[in-house]
């Protein structure tokens, strides 16, 4: 794009309705030093206080290990944690992807027809209220001990939030914009791509922010139940060995995964929806 310059508020967005990823953020951070420093200070203080307390009070290792000990547990077998994390992450994200695609497709159908929405809502709700702990054994029988049962559990647990938000999002169109397009005899698909889909993106991102941690929980619980490899199994083994430092290590790895994914989604959301807050702010 030869004509793109840095001082333009929109570069690719003027061509396509799929929001652009390379728009410069207009809003700067207030006092960046303080904003990054403060959370770091809090984390250091918590870890330092914890370490000091365990040492001074001589807390038993299997009750509460010192952070240094947890770090040692992690450092002793980093590959084991990385391996398990990658396996769980694969199952979680695989499930999330399947759920998002499926729920979005179904949401498109439901958003276009009240009759179909009414017909499809009860089975969708059934998926939501189904306790995954109860259906997991069935999945094991049907799909074996590979990664698929776990992927499906992660998909099952994230399907509903995405579906509901998709339907609401696709319907959340500006009635005036809709009228304008209809007065031009715009086709359904023109209205979908140019109005409905972009309007639904804020809702889709809200769903993803809910679903990302859910998908991790789904995958880990599934591993936990079946003893299949991954973070769930790692926790199971550490628990059996009374290896509390390893348990803490697993918790820290899982927390890091969840936080990274959430931050990633938020970052993507800010980039893709840069028009959204600026518009709301008016």
């Amino acid at each position: 794009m030869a004509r793109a310059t840095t001082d333009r508020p929109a570069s690719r967005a003027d061509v396509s309705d799929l929001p652009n990823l390379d728009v410069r953020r207009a809003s700067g951070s207030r006092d960046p030093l303080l904003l990054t420093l403060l959370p770091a200070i809090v984390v250091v203080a918590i870890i330092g206080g914890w370490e000091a307390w365990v040492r001074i009070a001589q807390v038993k290792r299997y009750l509460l290990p010192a952070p240094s000990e947890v770090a040692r547990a992690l450092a002793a077998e980093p590959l084991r944690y990385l391996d398990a994390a990658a396996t769980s992450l694969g199952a979680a994200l695989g499930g999330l992807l399947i759920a998002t695609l499926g729920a979005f497709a179904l949401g498109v159908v439901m958003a276009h027809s009240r009759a179909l929405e009414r017909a499809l809502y009860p089975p969708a709700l059934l998926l939501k209220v189904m306790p995954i702990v109860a259906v997991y054994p069935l999945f094991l029988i049907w799909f074996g001990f590979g990664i698929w049962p776990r992927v499906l559990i992660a998909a099952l647990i994230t399907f509903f939030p995405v579906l509901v938000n998709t339907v609401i999002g696709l319907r959340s169109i500006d009635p005036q914009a809709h009228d304008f397009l209809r007065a031009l005899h715009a086709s359904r698909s023109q209205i979908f791509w140019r109005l409905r889909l972009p309007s639904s993106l804020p809702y889709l991102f809200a769903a993803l922010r809910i679903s990302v941690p859910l998908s991790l929980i789904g995958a880990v619980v599934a591993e936990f139940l079946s003893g299949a490899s991954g973070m769930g199994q790692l926790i199971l083994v550490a628990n059996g060995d009374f290896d509390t430092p390893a348990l803490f290590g697993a918790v820290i790895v899982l927390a890091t995964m969840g936080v990274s994914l959430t931050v990633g989604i938020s970052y993507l959301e800010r980039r893709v929806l840069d028009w959204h807050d600026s518009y709301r702010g008016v």
Partner: protein
Amino acid sequence: MVAARASHWKAPLLVATLPLPPAAVGTPAVEVLDLSHRYASAAGEVVALEHASLRVAAGEFVSIVGPSGCGKTTLLRAVAGLLAPSGGEVRVLGGAPRDAQRAHALGLVTQDPGLLPWRSVEANVRLPLEITGATADVSALLERVGIARFARYRPGQLSGGMRQRVALARALAHGPRLLLMDEPFGALDELSREDLRLELLALWERERIAVLFVTHAIHEAVLLSDRVVVMSGSPGRVAADIAIDLPRPRTDDLISTPRFVALDAEVRAALRGSAPATRGAR
């Protein structure tokens, strides 16, 4: 120059390609005959319009004034083919409103402009071109409504007045033969209103496309229009149809002339005469 540009626009209907000035084309732009409309709501039926009739000749500027809730928006939406009236007939450019939609002959401007917040100003104005397949010089169009400088801005970064200019440019982009405007300046401050009003006046006096214009400002209606249709409330009907025989081209200076003052008073009196029933009921 304007005429030359207009010829680049895809002619929406055969008539537009005839070498006749629009005013000489015989088919009226709008004919509303005995229009009635009832809304079914939870609280019961609301009669929004009863036996309303009006006519807009080709190239004519007609304003509708009337108390809030008298059915002006309902009437305009029926003309745009966005609403199927419960009774009566609407003909637009000699056909059904749907045919006018199909011919891309309508341009719509509403109080809340319904711009797409993720698109730049320029891309918003290009929207009707994408839908209809018509071509137009978008930057010239932006120039004409005085927003060329803001071509790359998003709607959220503009003032209300600027947004309304974008809406006007968007409504004109595909070369409509009938412009429908529903309180387009209603949400603006008095100064922006005045600016936009005069620019619309100048624009219309050059292009002479038919306009049906809903407003609450009586002097605005008198200044802009060839005729002012006064509607009365609950249920909505046409109370008066007043020809505005002020010379054209018109400017702001007219407002203080005796003839303008007299016409303004006449519209005001018709509006008052139409109101007591409503006022008494409240």
